[in-house]
């Protein structure tokens, strides 16, 4: 191990220890006494600031460092869809967040699968959705493990091997999430956000000055030499044109508001207003996403000729090339935490869904929050371990699955959003729509017809899903459900409701 590697690795190691310590510190005096609601949704007690860092933390993953720079390098402008859908999603979260929050609070629910089971009055539906969502989420855990592995290996100048880096990613994340749950993830998010904002802010100024004598010359050169990268559909015949951009951003903006990890953040809020304030504040975070995209394009001039997976390292090549070892270490930590925080919330959500909606239906666990919590923690270790083992053994299996993750999850939108607001959507309507939409996504993606005629396959499937759901609701059987509308449907809470609900124990 040479000097640079020793310095960068030490910086990295110190911060990893700090991360676990923070996660453990977060639950001091709270950990032992409570059930699944404390662990899964932080006892519904997080204020505006914690919700901000947590939700920003979930949205800003290792993709932002690697994939965003890599897409910027390979294609250019199409990658901006990430900013478009996150901004639109945060905006409609102004209504959706408080609505889901108050619904969950009123009925003592802790995950999206719980809500579905309550809305349609069928526990098995919660179980089925939990399994489906797990299949969609596992690939994300693996992507975070591999993303962090690549970063750690690069910033340690190769001193930490990929396989060890994968293991560190798994161990650190599982270590604190099992003990501290959502609250610990929020605390670690604070450390992460400070580092991410500081390092990206620094790189945004430093890189153009170091390589191009400032932004003016950098942008001039970009416009003059690489115009293909600067409009849709980008460079390299990607087929990612304006139709694709608009349909994908639209679909993802709907999906992100019901994504199980986003919902975990919503449900952790102390009150509905914390979520409304966040809908205003969160979009600012997206400004940071421009940095890796621009730096990915800067890398076109500095390290030309990266191909395949190598292009994901476009930004890190610049970092390692131009900065001293300690700074490389700090930037690596920021990127590693950008894997750890979302991974922690993904695992937490999988654990919660299984603890409540799958294993919670087992008689020995039903109605016993503490045992459900223990079961959930076991599931976290199993799910994380499974993702790790698959990373080592068959790295491509989950990558292939990840192709359908987001578009597959999008098919839950009618069942969840429409279902919670409109009583006449029936159980069988929602299920038929989900099956039809899910099947169409799988068919189009696995036969490589995504996008089809420029339109995102998930968006097409969502249209089919919606039509099937409506037709079956109108013509199909109507399950008997005597509960009043207030019991079944969700509404955006008024301030008076909010105050009344605050006295109800979580």
């Amino acid at each position, binding site marked *: 191990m040479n000097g640079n590697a020793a310095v960068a690795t030490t910086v990295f190691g110190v911060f990893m220890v700090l991360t676990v310590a923070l996660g453990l510190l977060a639950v001091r005096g709270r950990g032992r006494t409570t059930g699944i609601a404390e662990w899964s949704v932080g006892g519904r007690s997080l204020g505006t600031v914690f919700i901000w860092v947590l939700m920003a933390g979930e949205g800003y993953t290792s993709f932002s460092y690697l994939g965003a720079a890599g897409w910027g390098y390979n294609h250019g402008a199409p990658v901006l869809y990430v900013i478009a859908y996150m*901004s639109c999603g945060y*905006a409609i979260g102004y209504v959706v967040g408080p609505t889901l929050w108050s619904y969950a609070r009123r009925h003592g629910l802790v995950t999206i699968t719980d809500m579905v089971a309550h809305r349609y009055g069928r526990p098995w539906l919660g179980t089925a959705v939990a399994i489906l969502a797990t299949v969609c989420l596992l690939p994300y855990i693996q992507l975070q493990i591999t993303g962090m592995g690549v970063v750690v290996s690069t910033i340690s100048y190769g001193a930490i091997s990929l396989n060890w880096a994968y293991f560190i990613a798994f161990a650190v994340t599982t270590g604190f999430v099992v003990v501290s749950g959502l609250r610990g993830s929020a605390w670690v998010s604070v450390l992460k956000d400070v580092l991410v904002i500081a390092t990206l802010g620094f790189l945004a100024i430093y890189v153009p000055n170091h390589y191009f004598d400032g932004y003016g010359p950098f942008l001039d050169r970009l416009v003059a030499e690489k115009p293909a990268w600067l409009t849709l559909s980008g460079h390299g015949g990607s087929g990612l044109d304006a139709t694709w951009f608009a349909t994908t951003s639209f679909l993802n903006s709907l999906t992100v508001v019901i994504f199980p990890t986003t919902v975990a953040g919503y449900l952790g809020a102390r009150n509905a207003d914390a979520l409304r304030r966040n809908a*205003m504040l969160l979009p600012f975070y997206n400004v940071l996403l421009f940095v890796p995209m621009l730096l990915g394009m800067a890398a076109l001039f500095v390290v030309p000729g990266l191909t395949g997976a190598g292009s994901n390292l476009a930004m890190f090549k610049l970092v390692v090339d131009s900065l001293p070892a300690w700074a490389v270490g700090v930037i690596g930590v920021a990127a590693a935490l950008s894997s750890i925080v979302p991974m922690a919330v993904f695992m937490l959500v999988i654990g919660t869904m299984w603890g409540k909606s799958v294993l919670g239906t087992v008689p020995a666990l039903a109605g016993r929050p503490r045992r459900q919590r223990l079961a959930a923690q076991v599931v976290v270790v199993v799910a994380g371990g499974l993702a790790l083992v698959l990373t080592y053994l068959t790295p491509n299996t989950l990558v292939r699955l990840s192709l359908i993750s987001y578009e597959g999850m999008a098919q839950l939108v009618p069942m969840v959003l429409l279902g919670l607001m409109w009583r006449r959507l029936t159980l069988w309507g929602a299920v038929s729509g989900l099956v039809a939409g899910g099947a169409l996504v799988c068919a189009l993606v696995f036969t490589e017809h995504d996008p089809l005629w420029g339109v995102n396959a998930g968006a097409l499937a969502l249209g089919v899903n919606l039509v099937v759901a409506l037709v079956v609701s109108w013509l199909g059987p109507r399950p008997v459900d005597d509960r009043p509308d207030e019991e079944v449907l969700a509404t955006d809470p008024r301030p008076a409701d909010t105050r009344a609900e605050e006295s109800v124990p979580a």
Partner: protein
Amino acid sequence: MLKRPHLLWLLAPYVLFLGTLPLADRVRPTVMGLPFLFFWLLAATLLTPAAVFLAWRGDRKRGRV
């Protein structure tokens, strides 16, 4: 929704990011050196919080928040 028309502000990001794409998808004119599409999407990113703020202000005026 009819009781809260100010919530229509929440759709402003869709217009800014997606509705205007046919017009905004161009390199020139550059603004402060930025290619036009990047400038436009950066502006939309900064205007999104403002749109949500207008929705929030509407709620506050009607005593909902």
